[in-house]
């Protein structure tokens, strides 16, 4: 058993050093790590409204974006560009529901806003990642990127 020889001052020094690194990391995550979003031109006013509707109806409880969310329904990241899916498919499902998905009886304008939002999300990246190479260090190189 190691002894309790470390002074409180030294403990505080380690804690605060880590905390400063945490703040620096947060700064870079908020700025250079994430600010580059080439799909901003697809973020229309309708899409912004669609995002809020997506939240208000708690869609994330059942669906995922980038694999994050619920598991009752499919990942919607690329639903607008997936083979056999697209705008008409999405609108039909929202307006009619399915055995698993409730029909929320949304007005046409809300359905349009939601599809605009999903269209914006679709342009930002790919999920799930299906085509990749595994590198020796355990990382992957994605083959298909937006």
């Amino acid at each position: 058993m190691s002894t309790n020889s470390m002074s409180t001052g030294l403990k505080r020094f380690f804690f605060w050093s880590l905390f400063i690194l945490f703040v620096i990391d947060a700064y870079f995550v908020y700025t250079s790590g994430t600010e580059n979003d080439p799909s901003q031109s697809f973020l229309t006013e309708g899409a912004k409204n669609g995002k809020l509707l997506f939240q208000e109806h708690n869609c994330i409880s059942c669906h995922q974006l980038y694999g994050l969310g619920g598991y009752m329904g499919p990942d919607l990241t690329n639903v607008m560009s997936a083979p056999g899916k697209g705008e008409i498919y999405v609108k039909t499902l929202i307006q009619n529901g399915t055995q698993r998905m409730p029909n929320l009886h949304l007005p046409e304008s809300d359905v349009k806003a939601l599809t605009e939002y999903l269209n914006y999300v679709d342009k930002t990246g790919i999920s799930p990642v299906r085509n990749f190479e595994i590198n020796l260090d355990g990382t992957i190189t994605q083959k298909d990127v937006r």
Partner: protein
Amino acid sequence: MKKEIGVVFIFLSITALLAGSFFGCISAFQFVFPGFFDLLPFFKNRPIHVSFTVSWIFLSAIGGIYYYLPKYCGLPLFSRKMAVVHIWMFIITGFLIISSYLFGKFGGREYWEFPPILAIPIFVSWVIFTFNFFKTVLKKVGQWPVYMWMWSTGVCFFLMTFTESYLWVLPHFRNNIILELTVQWKAGGSLVGSWNMLVYGTALFVMERIKGDQSLSRSNLAFWMYLLGLTNLMFGWAHHIYNVPTAPWIRYLSYVISMSELLILSKIIWNWRKSLEQAKKDFYFLPFRFLVASDIWIFLNIVLAILISIPAVNAYTHGTHITVAHSMGSAIGINTMILLASVLFIITDVTKFEFAGTQKTIIRIGFWLTNISLLVFLTFLVIAGAEKGKLIVENKLVFQEIMQQIDPYLVSFAWSGLFIFIGLLMTTIPPLLAIIQYLKKKD
């Protein structure tokens, strides 16, 4: 409410645990049998389940802190009134949150799915708790035991990360999904780390009391392990967002930090090697038994966490039921086992009531039923997740085809969830009755 305020928190925490696992069972059956209990659809039921479960963790951890500080650390609460305000704010906000779900009013953020306005009372009540906590513990500065560092860290980081998780209300964050998802999971990952600090601090405290060995929480090694945990809390969150197109350094940093958990894993194995004989002797003591169980779940969960932090593995497991196994394993296996140990410790301590033979038997059966069912529950989730990952990446199947193939595993998962609920009922009903008797007694 003249009784020990910590005990009132503990009473509420047990009811939240039972409610959380009850609604969890309904959610699981709705997941595999669409149309089941349509009165409360899945998209309402799931957030109710999550809110009660998170409440169980917070109420029991906070209740423990309110109880242990004056009773065992020689630190009377700075203000009992503040603690009473805290609990009333918790109850009223909780009532409003559940009502908002029932009426279909959502904020739509995973885990905090209530309208954002309700984050304000949560924030204010936590500020009150933080103030009260530090005014209490700073009466005695000097060589703090590690659990005091952990509790202090958990209290502060919850406030920070909870605030950070609401940055999305600002258009700058909301209008860039890459930034928003990253900040959400950065905050969410660290927030879970902050409540883990409260829970693991509680585990160390209870273990120290049971063993009567103060060196457990005062050694240099204990402090280094705390720093390692803190490092993971701060920087090890990005495995949630490996496939979000952020700058690559965010992923690499998290990957490297996550691998440091191998040190924690080695420490657990080393401890087991040394303490197995002693553990066998103390296993009869109920709180100790729950701590031993949590140790085994910590081991299994760290193995899983390390694996899913490797990007090549994560590409298969992300967005599958393996992620659910990881979070449920942590919430039930680790947090719940530790907090049940703390709850049993407090109840026997405060009521001076030794459970009768029959009650002990019921709790022991509940213990085994919960743990064995949890093992089955997690095994089926891992199998379902591995199968789903393979079907997505290698077979390129679509959602409906995948769900058809993994359905038998999910049905088994739902049934084992029901047995976890029964096990938890058996474990918690005797202590709940003891605590009700205590609270009914006149001062």
